[in-house]
């Protein structure tokens, strides 16, 4: 064997080409071809290698991998930040779609179990004074993989542990906000008033797995509920529906891929870099302004592009009546699993 053959035989096995990264590279090439700007250097390339701290601060999200450059930090070398790249919302979503792996499917008689940490605003009126605060919980939800559309049938069980509340910007925390902190309760999930769950609003696994597995079909589904509304409202409603499909659910891999690709086509979706979820994990936000001065983001892991959680943040102080940058909602989806049984919960509806 000569030296060349020796090296050919001992070639290192490279990591496979990530489908998301490949799709992105191809998209960029096609975009360059379409733009006809053959000589133009795409903006995202600028801070490719060892960007200065200033370049990092420019805008957008950045992805970290490797070791940190001396210019950006006097932190210990163990820290792992570098190779910053500006990514568009579409690029983040393509990567997220590419990162979705195949997983075993739950049976219809099983439960989807989701553990999360949440913070949402509480608005209280009555007894003459209004109060606002941010309530925080640890939640575990057991959802029947196949739920009845009859709302009187329990569709799952929820345990909630109440955590210390936080202040809604500019509002003192009312005393009652502290009631129940540290305590857990287990509740049946049921709607005692009855009624039927409309097909297009269902989020149980059996319904989710029937949703379109292609981006165009999924996009249509996102817009289906707001057919007759104004256009910018429709975009927000579509983004809202996407959140509903992902929050405390199990969206099968094919539909999850289709959803991320569909979201990449929504007008107004943009990236917010450097965000954290309720558990303090750093991520990339992808979202839009969803109501008066408040932006909602899905948060993705900057390395694996898995969904970490969500957040809502004030982007227009005037409209939101709270300082810009205030965090109004923050969640972290910590674990999704499948179980054969759920804990017992008292039937919440009194049977008369």
């Amino acid at each position: 064997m000569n030296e060349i053959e020796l090296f050919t035989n001992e070639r290192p096995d490279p990591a496979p080409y990530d489908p998301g990264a490949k799709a992105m590279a191809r998209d960029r090439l096609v975009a360059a071809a379409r733009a006809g700007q053959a000589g133009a250097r795409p903006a995202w390339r600028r801070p490719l290698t060892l960007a200065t701290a200033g370049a990092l601060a420019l805008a957008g999200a950045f992805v970290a991998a490797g070791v940190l450059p001396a210019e950006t930090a006097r932190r210990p070398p163990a820290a792992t930040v570098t190779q910053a790249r500006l990514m568009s919302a579409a690029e983040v979503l393509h990567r997220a779609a590419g990162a979705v792996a195949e997983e075993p499917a739950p049976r219809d008689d099983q439960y989807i179990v989701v553990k999360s940490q949440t913070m949402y605003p509480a608005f209280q009126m009555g007894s003459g004074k209004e109060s606002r605060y941010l309530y925080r919980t640890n939640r575990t939800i057991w959802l029947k993989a196949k739920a009845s559309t009859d709302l009187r049938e329990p569709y799952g069980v929820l345990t909630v542990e109440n955590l210390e509340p936080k202040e809604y910007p500019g509002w003192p925390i009312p005393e009652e906000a502290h009631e129940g902190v540290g305590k857990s309760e287990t509740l049946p999930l049921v709607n005692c008033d009855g009624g039927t769950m409309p097909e297009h609003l269902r989020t149980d696994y059996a319904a989710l797995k029937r949703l379109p597995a292609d981006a165009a079909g999924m996009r249509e589904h996102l817009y289906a509920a707001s057919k007759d509304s104004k256009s910018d409202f429709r975009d927000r409603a579509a983004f809202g529906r996407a959140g509903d499909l992902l929050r405390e659910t199990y969206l099968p891999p094919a539909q999850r891929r289709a959803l991320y690709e569909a979201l990449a086509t929504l007008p107004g979706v943009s990236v917010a870099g450097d965000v954290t979820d309720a558990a303090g994990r750093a991520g990339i936000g992808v979202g839009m302004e969803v109501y008066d001065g408040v932006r909602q983001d899905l948060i993705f892991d900057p390395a694996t592009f898995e969904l970490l959680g969500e957040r809502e943040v004030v982007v227009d102080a005037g409209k939101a009546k709270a300082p810009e940058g205030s965090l109004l909602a923050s969640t972290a989806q910590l674990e999704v699993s499948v179980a054969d049984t759920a804990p017992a919960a008292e039937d919440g509806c009194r049977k008369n």
Partner: protein
Amino acid sequence: MPSGNTAAGCGGVRVKGDSLHETTHPVVTATAADDAALIQASLADPERFAGLFDRYAEEIHRYAGRRLADVAAADDVTAETFLTAFRKRARYDLSRPDARPWLYGIAANLIARHRRAEVRRLRALARLTGDLPEGGEQPFEQTSLDRVEARRLRPRLAAALAALSCAERELFLLVAWAELSYEQAAEALDIPMGTVRSRLSRTRAKIRRVLEAPR
């Protein structure tokens, strides 16, 4: 160690312009038969160029993945290879049906640039950690790059690679890892066939010496 051997000294490969070639044309493979036709068509209809990506992106990515320490860098090099090729497509020599040597030449250039960036990063890291060169014979950045290489390759082979100059390493790996023919490697690096032959035989002798040296 021969001088001029640090990774920092690895200049970019000359990417083909319109200089003269004494090479014979490569053997035409079935899949590559119409690369030139596709590139020509992309002059009028730029989006057609994506067809070249579909043909060779996996292959270029594989080569970049072998040459670079992290996947993100291989992703970048692959994306940038095709963007650069797209920008230069008007200057492609249409008498060459197989575009792979041209693409490898562009990729090799970008990989060399990445390795220089890696050296800068290692040097920056050395300043942070105070990890200074041991023995002082080789600069710190070279030994570190070698360590990266050794992790993925048998240490003896990595040592042999480290003994090569940049130009030798570039040519040798295009032949050994990308499995280009001598003609294709000449095309990729834009050097005459005579140079390819003499450089490769010198390279092989060097490798043999390292592999046969007592430890």
